[in-house]
């Protein structure tokens, strides 16, 4: 499957939300869409999901323009928005059965599919609990299960790990990575660790513009020799730090990672960049 986005732009009033987006996406690996809050990630995903129409541009799914013919996308799509849709008075299994029915899945097949998904997302013991009584993380998992009903070929999830604990986040990441082998899976997040080690393609979006699109390895190469680390004593007041990628507490002190073209101070040493460093560098520099 191929998703080709050409010259997509969108304004809300006077504000340019997306500016001339061009992307070519394939199955074969998870696609991570990263960017700060307000970058336009959700808007881009809503356009691809045919909820919004772009002002300019086209989107082709296997050669068919889905802006003109949204049904072509909808029959293959599994979309999970940022705010998980749910019915509080239904139990998890009832809700998934309802979604399966809306998707046109027969009862028999829906039953096995739902059992599968509930097991995969560790919700099998809570299947008869009402969604109103679920925690946010559990509702998120139900939402993802609903998205995957019917084996959609294009899976779009908008910040699916918000509110999840680390173990839940790893589960979702692994499930989506597994599916990305022969589906187009786009995951948007502003938490790099969600896609680290599983994404085959990274798209960095800022203020409606694409700053980078390509493999994580190439992104990392761009910031080789630009990532520095030094150690500050514990309990030292840290202020006026610039371009800080991370601050971690270790046995020997507080390790501060900084993105900089030149050595920031005498104690700093050049270190191997991580994806988080690279994305921060791109977002800060803008290219």
């Amino acid at each position: 499957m191929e998703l080709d986005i050409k010259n997509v732009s969108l304004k809300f009033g006077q504000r340019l939300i997306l500016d001339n987006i061009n992307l070519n996406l394939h199955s074969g690996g998870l696609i991570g869409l990263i960017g700060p809050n307000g970058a336009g990630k959700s808007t881009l995903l809503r356009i691809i999901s045919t909820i919004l129409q772009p002002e300019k541009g086209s989107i082709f799914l296997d050669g068919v323009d889905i802006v003109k013919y949204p049904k072509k996308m909808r029959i293959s799509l599994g979309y999970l928005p940022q705010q998980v849709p749910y019915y509080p008075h239904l139990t998890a299994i009832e809700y998934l059965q309802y979604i399966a029915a809306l998707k046109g899945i027969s009862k028999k097949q829906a039953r096995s599919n739902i059992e599968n998904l509930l097991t995969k997302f560790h919700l099998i013991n809570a299947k008869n609990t009402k969604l109103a009584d679920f925690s946010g993380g559990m509702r998120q998992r139900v939402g993802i299960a609903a998205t995957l009903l019917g084996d959609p070929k294009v899976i779009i999830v908008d910040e699916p790990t918000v509110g999840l604990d680390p173990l839940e986040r790893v589960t979702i990441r692994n499930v989506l990575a597994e599916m990305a082998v022969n589906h187009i899976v786009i995951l948007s997040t502003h938490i790099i660790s969600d896609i680290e080690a599983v994404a085959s393609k990274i798209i960095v979006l800022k203020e409606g513009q694409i700053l980078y699109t390509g493999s994580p390895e190439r992104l990392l190469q761009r910031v080789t020799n630009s990532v520095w680390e030094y150690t500050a004593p514990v309990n030292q007041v840290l202020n006026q730090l610039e371009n800080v990628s991370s601050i971690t507490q270790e046995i020997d002190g507080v390790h501060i990672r900084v993105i900089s073209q030149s050595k920031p101070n005498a104690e700093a040493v050049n270190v191997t960049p991580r994806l988080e460093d690279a994305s921060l560098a791109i977002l800060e520099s803008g290219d």
Partner: protein
Amino acid sequence: MISLTRIVKATFLERSRRLSYWALIILALIAAVIGYPRIKGPIKVFVLEPNLFIQASNPSWVPVSVVLVLGLFLPIISYLFLKNTIGIDDQNHTNVLMASVSFSKIKYIGGKFLANCLLLFILWIVIILGTIIMVILQFPGKFIDFYQFLTPFLTLLPGIFIISMLAIFTEIVPFLRGILGIILVSFFSLICYGVSIENYNSFFLKIINPSGSSYLFKMIQDTCVKTVGQPLKQTMLLSSGNFKETGKQTLFFLPIKFTQQDLLIFIIQLIICIVMLILAGFIFSPHKYSNKIRKNSIPINLVHDHHKLKTINSKSASSSLLKTSFALLWRPLSIYNKLALIILWLTAWLSSLAIKQLIILPLILLTELPLLSNLGSQITQFSFYQWLMTIPKAQNKQQFFEYVASLTFTLILFLPFMLKSSYTALLLVCFSIMICMLAQVLGLITKGNRMFIFLMVIFCFIYLNGITNLLPINKLNPSVCLVYLGVTLVLFLIKCSLKQLIK
């Protein structure tokens, strides 16, 4: 420490920037046009002794007519608009912040109350401005004293405080929070209005009446007596009746004379509002604890099975959709609502014809209101409706099965009435088809249920007062069936157009 003025400001800005408030402002302007004392056309807005007086012969008629018409509907519409003053903080999760800090509940409630009053006061100003424009347009070059023009509008002012208070009080008291509160307040307002026509001198009625209509009816009577020496015999408001205007006398309405007793009444009203608000402040709590223990302790196992998802055929699952649609309508109802429906339904089987028609039928309608009012509006909550756009035909399926479920439910409720005659059965089927469609369309358009609730409450109130022509189950009137089917068709077309617009 929370400042009262900041609560007022925040609440006012939040509410006044919503589309619904601007719709209300436009409605108020339109109301000033509709309230003009029109005597030609299918609906006669305000007619007074047509055999004695020349109708709407001078500008003094305009404010009286506008306020009389608005006094009937404005308290209910204002109440419906203000209904979720506290609920807004629930919706945007501000209540969570409130639960974590210490603050003055009285100031919080007071701030909300004052913001409500300010919102309605602006509406009041808009109505006055609209009426001035109508006077200028309909009576160019003719003027009346401004105080005389203003006095009918002054009768609406106490209602602003009463409705603002009721909106908050009913939101805080648990059993009044839902549709029961809306029905009670609406009926209360309509009954006060109706009773004030004859009993306009009642001290107690003047205190509790949110429409201020007692003053107007008294003034109209006094003017009539002063002009022709006898009291009024015939007043028509929003009437569809036909009459011949043979009157020759000009009736010039006097300004309403407010006495010291009226000032005392206003002070009592304010005291009642303050007492109710203080009581609401004591009852109110932002803490919503649940004693349910969530089944959350499910161990996460990182080593998961690699089950491949099976390929799914696209076969319809209609029975599952219908079953879930029923559940979605029935489950959100409170246990009391469910019990009331069952009891009323059983009572309908055992009651006489007259009681069935005049009392049980409208009560069943009112009790079914929470269910019907969820049509179209429930799905727009929880981000569901928009998300369904990403599944082919899902929106249509959801709408269809929701409609079928609600129609089936309504027909079951009407079954005890339908067995009387085939005409009654046909009439109730047509009516059921129409109200389910109306609920769904209004819910989709307004993304809420208040518009539908308002219409049904007015309908039931009129029906309970003996005007059964809207649903004449004892009289053979096939044209009513046609009207309901016609309305259904129009609503269906509106729904289809909405979908096209969204596409």
